[in-house]
């Protein structure tokens, strides 16, 4: 039997954008809001700190990757989305990036002047919205005692080479330092949307349906325009460990005055494509950004605190402006570590046996927009296909950045430095360096798929914002250029990379659009 909903606002996705929008709209309006989420509703009671078990929090059970299988494309697929499975790393929106978007894509609003009243809405500006987000998530710098050995080593290596570092800000409250942010916080200390904005929204009457696959958006023709009127979806059986659902499994039909898609940079364009959203200039899903990253592995001669404590607390953006590169300190647990560690058999195990002596951080490339990199809904297989390859210029920047990463790791005192790669470089059979002078061989890295492990986690820019319908899909209000009463508001809305870990930028965007929408809702009525 089909379950039917009649609502004012349908929000698709409960992650960094969807939950913030639901909370903001429910606080500022009396509209009926339905929030649907593809993944399950897992809470801290379920999070058991085991990587394998916690794969249910991830898209495709952690198996999502580019079409050739070479780059894992990690993403949260559960209530809270990426904010449930990320490492709580908070970087504010970068003003120059948004200024460039205004210049290059004609974006309106998004003022960084705290006195601005964008769209004639009182106090609607980026600093105010960011401030709201920062307060709700308790974003703050960790104290000295919270910096673990791995982060301290990274900091000291950078210092040796004269590279400036910064302390990450984190959305945590009284963290106990267990080291399992990425597996869902079992203590509710990480302030993801599932325990912040979503709780606010539910208290105010927002209805949540999880395990919900939105099959397609429904459009009607009104005069010469298409109008979104709802969605067809299907609720799956609730997975073991999830909270119970509010509707039984089966098909659902939703009628809504306004549909807001917040599925992230992979799911959002795929949903629009399979719904037949007009795409006259072949833009949907194109220009995917995913911040390709290469882990740098160091073997130290002493035991470290690496997998306990806050995983990421130190980073360097010293090369962001000129090279578009970040160095971010993070550390994984054995499943992730064993997959990233090069080699197999005895050689691999001998490295894993030194798990307590391994230091690690990542090189993160802010990649360029390339139309060939895209997300596409494949009708035949009914699956999302992600195509991505590094362009020549990005490849060159990554080589330089990895070389510097190897030098930083040696400067920490590492006796050996490894890359997750089997590529022969210089006289070496693989990039397993025993002397800093060997770092120069990184210039020969080709980053061959399946030979060098590149990771990713920050998908963006697949349903781009802009005022020109020939070069963008949604306008500065995140409204579709082609379908009325349809918004796309998440990391896919960014025209290019937002220049950093995107969570706080996405939340700020959602807060901004939520406040704007609350005073402009009449645009979607009647």
């Amino acid at each position, binding site marked *: 039997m089909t379950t039917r909903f009649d609502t004012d606002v349908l929000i698709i996705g409960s992650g960094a954008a969807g939950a913030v929008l639901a909370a903001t709209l429910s606080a500022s309006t009396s509209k009926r809001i339905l929030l649907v989420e593809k993944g399950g509703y897992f809470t801290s009671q379920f999070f*058991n700190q085991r990587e*394998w078990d916690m794969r249910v929090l991830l898209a495709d059970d952690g198996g999502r990757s580019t079409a050739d299988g070479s780059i894992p494309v990690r993403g949260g697929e559960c209530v809270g989305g990426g904010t449930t499975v990320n490492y709580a790393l908070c970087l504010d929106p970068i003003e120059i990036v948004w200024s460039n978007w205004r210049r290059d894509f004609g974006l309106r609003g998004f003022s960084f002047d705290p006195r601005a009243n964008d769209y004639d809405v009182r106090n609607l500006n980026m600093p105010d919205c960011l401030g709201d987000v920062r307060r709700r998530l308790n974003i703050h710098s960790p104290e000295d005692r919270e910096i673990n050995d791995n982060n301290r080593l990274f900091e000291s290596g950078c210092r040796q080479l004269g590279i400036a570092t910064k302390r990450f800000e984190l959305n945590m409250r009284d963290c106990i330092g267990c080291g399992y942010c990425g597996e869902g916080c079992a203590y509710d200390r990480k302030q993801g949307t599932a325990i912040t904005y979503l709780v606010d929204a539910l208290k105010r009457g927002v209805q949540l349906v999880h395990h919900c696959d939105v099959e397609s958006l429904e459009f009607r023709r009104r005069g010469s325009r298409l109008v979104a009127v709802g969605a067809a979806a299907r609720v799956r059986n609730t997975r073991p460990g999830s909270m119970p659902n509010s509707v039984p499994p089966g098909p659902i039909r939703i009628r809504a005055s306004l549909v807001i898609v917040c599925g992230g940079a992979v799911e959002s364009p795929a949903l629009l494509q399979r719904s037949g959203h007009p795409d006259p200039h072949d833009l949907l899903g194109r220009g995917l950004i995913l911040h390709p990253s290469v882990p740098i592995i160091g073997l130290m001669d002493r035991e470290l605190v690496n997998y306990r404590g806050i995983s990421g607390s130190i980073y360097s953006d010293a090369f962001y402006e000129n090279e578009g590169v970040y160095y971010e300190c993070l550390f994984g647990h*054995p*499943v992730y570590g*064993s997959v990233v560690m090069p080699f197999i*058999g005895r050689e691999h195990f001998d490295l894993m046996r030194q798990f307590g002596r391994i230091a690690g951080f990542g090189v993160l490339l802010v990649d360029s927009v390339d139309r060939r990199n895209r997300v596409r809904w494949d009708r035949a297989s009914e699956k999302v296909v992600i195509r991505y390859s590094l362009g020549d210029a990005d490849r060159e920047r990554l080589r330089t950045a990895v070389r510097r990463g190897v030098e930083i790791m040696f400067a920490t005192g590492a006796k050996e430095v490894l890359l997750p790669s*089997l590529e022969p470089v210089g006289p070496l059979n693989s990039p397993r360096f025993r002397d800093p002078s060997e770092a120069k061989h990184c210039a020969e890295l080709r980053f*061959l*798929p399946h030979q060098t492990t590149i990771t990713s986690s920050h998908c963006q820019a697949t349903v781009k914002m802009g005022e020109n319908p020939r070069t963008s899909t949604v306008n500065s209000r995140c409204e579709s250029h082609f379908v009325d009463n349809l918004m796309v508001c998440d990391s896919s809305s960014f025209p290019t990379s937002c220049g950093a870990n995107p969570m706080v930028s996405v939340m700020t965007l959602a807060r901004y659009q939520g406040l704007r929408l609350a005073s402009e809702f009449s645009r979607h009525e009647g």
Partner: protein
Amino acid sequence: MEERFLSLFRLEDEERFLVVQKTLLFFDEVDLFPARFGPLVDDERRLFDASGYSADDFARRIEAKLREDEKLFRAFISHLPAASPKFTGLSVELGRDYLDLWGRSQFGTRRRFYRSAKDLVMITAYSRDDVWKAIGYEGPLLV
């Protein structure tokens, strides 16, 4: 057929490892030395012509990659005890060396196979508490 395979080879009793188990079984059916790349058949040539790529260029590139792979595999072949053995007939060391060659192949498909097999084995192994103990990993704080 699936049942027959599973009855032959028991890796784990736990259902969650079933995918790994099946993958390893099918892996055993892979020939050690795939056939060489033959000349393009007419259909392939037509496909290339239609796509604007040069079929002859493609064939030349494939041959060059095959020659590189041959160099890679030659030393290994000379150590093999008998002609055309199956993977499971090899010693652990030879099996590892052979897999390693796939990881270093010029062909993305071979490298992908290496990577997939490695990932499956590693994920399975390093999800286990007894393996954690062997590497000195204390595991979750929650009990």
